[in-house]
């Protein structure tokens, strides 16, 4: 047995530095770009790439809190329904005379409440997994949206509202700026605060977290409420870009979002992964879609490629654990 007195210094290791999934994502990202450049001469230009970001960034807002949820070892599949419900309520209110800024605030409020309900149900019914709870609320929230709009489209928003989805600040799309700010906030929240540390602790060992005096129920409710709020942010940008809304908007977003998080190296077993990985995955998938779209690759093929990428993302950490890194022996 090692009998040295414990020390507080850690040797820097290049191997450890490069043995991170995020570098793999960077490599794939570069590969995707090289491939796209060869596929289409229109791909590699500032304007083209800049405008591409506008088309895929809307759902990226949900990726941020979804990272927290999956680190907790939970999942939320109701987020797309929250997008639809908050979007529909906003349109409904505006069309019945509520001023647009107020309707937008209420949109955020609806998301907040939906997320809070998810969190509350998950904490109160511990025997139910979060998949089941959010499957139920997914159906309920979407159902309410259908009742409100009855499969109609609603829109005719004021002119300035389209700025959210289409506007620029100087040369930079407005949505990119807002996303950058949100991403920075979430990175700090997860990696620099006690809140983030507690999220990791809960995902690793919920019982020990409870015994360590972490308010685990309250933490879970906050995280799910955050997801609801960010889903409503997505609703704002998505509605603005489309100019109108329907009860079936954002269908399938939850799976896209979860795919991005998993590709980003966040383990569905909980407790592991970093925010930057998921953000990289957002851009990776976004540019891949955009490039293949330029050369008219059918959407189905694209899905197959995404599926393969996901399998690699899930498999690789397992291979790495068994062959490359060995835990120091007992």
């Amino acid at each position, binding site marked *: 047995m090692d009998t040295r007195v414990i*020390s*507080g210094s850690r040797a820097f290791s290049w191997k450890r530095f490069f043995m991170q999934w995020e570098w793999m994502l960077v490599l794939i990202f570069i590969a995707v770009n090289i491939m796209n450049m060869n596929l289409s001469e229109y791909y590699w230009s500032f304007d083209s790439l800049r405008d591409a970001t506008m088309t895929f960034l809307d759902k990226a807002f949900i990726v941020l809190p979804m990272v927290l949820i999956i680190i907790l070892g939970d999942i939320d599949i109701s987020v797309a329904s929250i997008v639809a419900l908050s979007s529909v309520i906003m349109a409904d209110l505006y069309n019945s005379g509520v001023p647009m800024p107020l309707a937008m605030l209420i949109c955020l409020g609806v998301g907040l409440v939906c997320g809070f309900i998810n969190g509350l149900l998950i904490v109160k019914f511990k025997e139910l997994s979060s998949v089941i709870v959010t499957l139920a609320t997914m159906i309920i929230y979407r159902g309410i949206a259908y009742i409100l709009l009855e499969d109609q489209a609603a829109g005719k928003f004021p002119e300035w509202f389209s700025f959210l989805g289409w506007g620029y600040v100087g040369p930079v799309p407005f949505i990119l700026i807002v996303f950058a700010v949100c991403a920075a906030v979430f990175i700090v929240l997860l990696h620099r605060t006690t809140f983030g*540390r*507690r999220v990791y602790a809960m995902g690793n060992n919920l*019982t*020990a977290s409870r*015994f360590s*005096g972490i308010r685990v129920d309250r933490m879970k409710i906050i995280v799910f409420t955050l997801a609801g709020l960010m889903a409503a942010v997505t609703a704002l940008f998505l509605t603005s870009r489309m100019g109108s809304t329907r009860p079936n908007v954002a269908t399938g977003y939850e799976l896209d979002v979860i795919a991005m998080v998993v590709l980003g190296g966040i383990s569905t077993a909980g407790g592991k992964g970093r925010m930057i990985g998921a953000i990289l995955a957002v851009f990776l998938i976004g540019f891949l879609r955009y490039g293949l779209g330029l050369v008219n690759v059918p959407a189905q093929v694209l899905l197959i490629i995404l599926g393969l990428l996901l399998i690699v993302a899930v498999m690789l950490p397992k291979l790495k654990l068994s062959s490359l890194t060995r835990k*120091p022996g007992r």
Partner: protein
Amino acid sequence: MEPYVLELKAITKIFPGVKALSDVMFQLAPGEIHALMGENGAGKSTFIKIITGVHSPTEGEMYVNGQKVQFQNPNDAKRLGIAAIYQHVTCYPDLSVTENIFMGHEKVQKGTRRIRWGEMHKEAQKLLDDLGAKFSPRTLMGSLSVAEQQIVEIAKALSTDAKIIIMDEPTAALTKRESEELYRITERLRDRGASIIFISHRFEDMYRLASKVTVFRDGKYIGSWQVNEIDNKDLIVAMVGREITQLFPKTEAKLGDEVLRTDGLGRTGYFADISFSLRRGEILGFTGLVGAGRTEVFQSLFGIEAYDRGNVFVKGEPVRIDNPQQAMKLGIGYLPEDRQKQGLVLDWEISRNITLSALDRFVSKGSLDTAKEEEEAVRLAQKMNVKAPSIYHLVSSLSGGNQQKVVFAKLLTADLDILILDEPTKGVDVGAKSAIYEIISTLAGQGYGVIMISSEMPEMIGMCDRVAVMREGRITAMLGKGEVTQENILQAAMESRSPSEALAGVAKS
């Protein structure tokens, strides 16, 4: 002379780092009820697992009906008619009694492999009738009481034609009436020709049922006696036996003010009437058999599962504790019994584990100050003498003793007055044990009020100023200085008393 139905000779079992059994022997005569006794950790469970083929012995020989056998897996044991009925019934609550009885050896039609339900139900009914059970074999297992489930387990053993039946603390969760019923069934089994190994902590079980008793201690065979040859006192000595040779670095701490007092604390179904007080510098022991309710009392006091009766006073002030945060704010810390599941994040570094329960202390300008955090982690890890190359080592790579020291360090980051230590030396080797005793003694000397929960007699006697003994959710004795002896503890822990006698025991202290 008739051969023994089961005989074990010179059995030794070594697990990595632990010698669970050393040179143990055992003889079971036909038609005998043989009690096997010993303290927690004496090696009884390992012994059963060897007989039932779950573990194979490192050394030694085993004979069934005079034939030498070597079990590769539990099925080999089953085939020779050995069946075990465990303390915590292992059943399928959502299946019927019949399915539970025939799980793994269903009656099937030859050829089509169709399950022959009618026949199985009929046979199950016959087994249950034999045992005097009053429920139908079609009942769901989960709707039965623990006692009834135990009868199903026995029926299951009979359905495989078991000739050697091992019962592991079958009466632990039963009421007096239910135990009486179980005795009757056990005797009927014996009369039908089965031989029974009966493991129990209760003397009354042994005297009522067994004709022979074998005692294990610390993984060793101590002796076998005819039950009518040995009295209560000699049996206790046999079970505890050893002189306390371990070094307990207990120093006399000056007792200060009262920091904690409870008055009639209770939680329905778990414990009742728990009253005690604790002073600064004092080490108050809580002992009793596993399942006596010690852990439940203190998890309630720490806010894990709320108590529903009684009052708690911290430093004289009446308080109400509903969750661990409140408990820690009041200065109560809890070192959990299961350090791997409840105390540590195994996949984390030492440093992060140490600071987890007091993260708010390391915040500056809204974010975590990792430098400050690691500085504190190094200080505490050194103070606890954790042996590891650095604080960035994963906790999962440490030995049990060092893991426990990390949990102690974690406890000390928070600002506490009262430390509740639940089995602080469980699964820790002897060397690390005395290091942990030293830590505990130092902490008491610094003015912490310490509560130490343990099943190990020597450390209770060596470390504690006073010892409370619990049995079936109640304090049956509060032993003061000079009264803390093995005999007194075992007496209070094992023998049932009427409530008035129990009260007298408390009043005496």
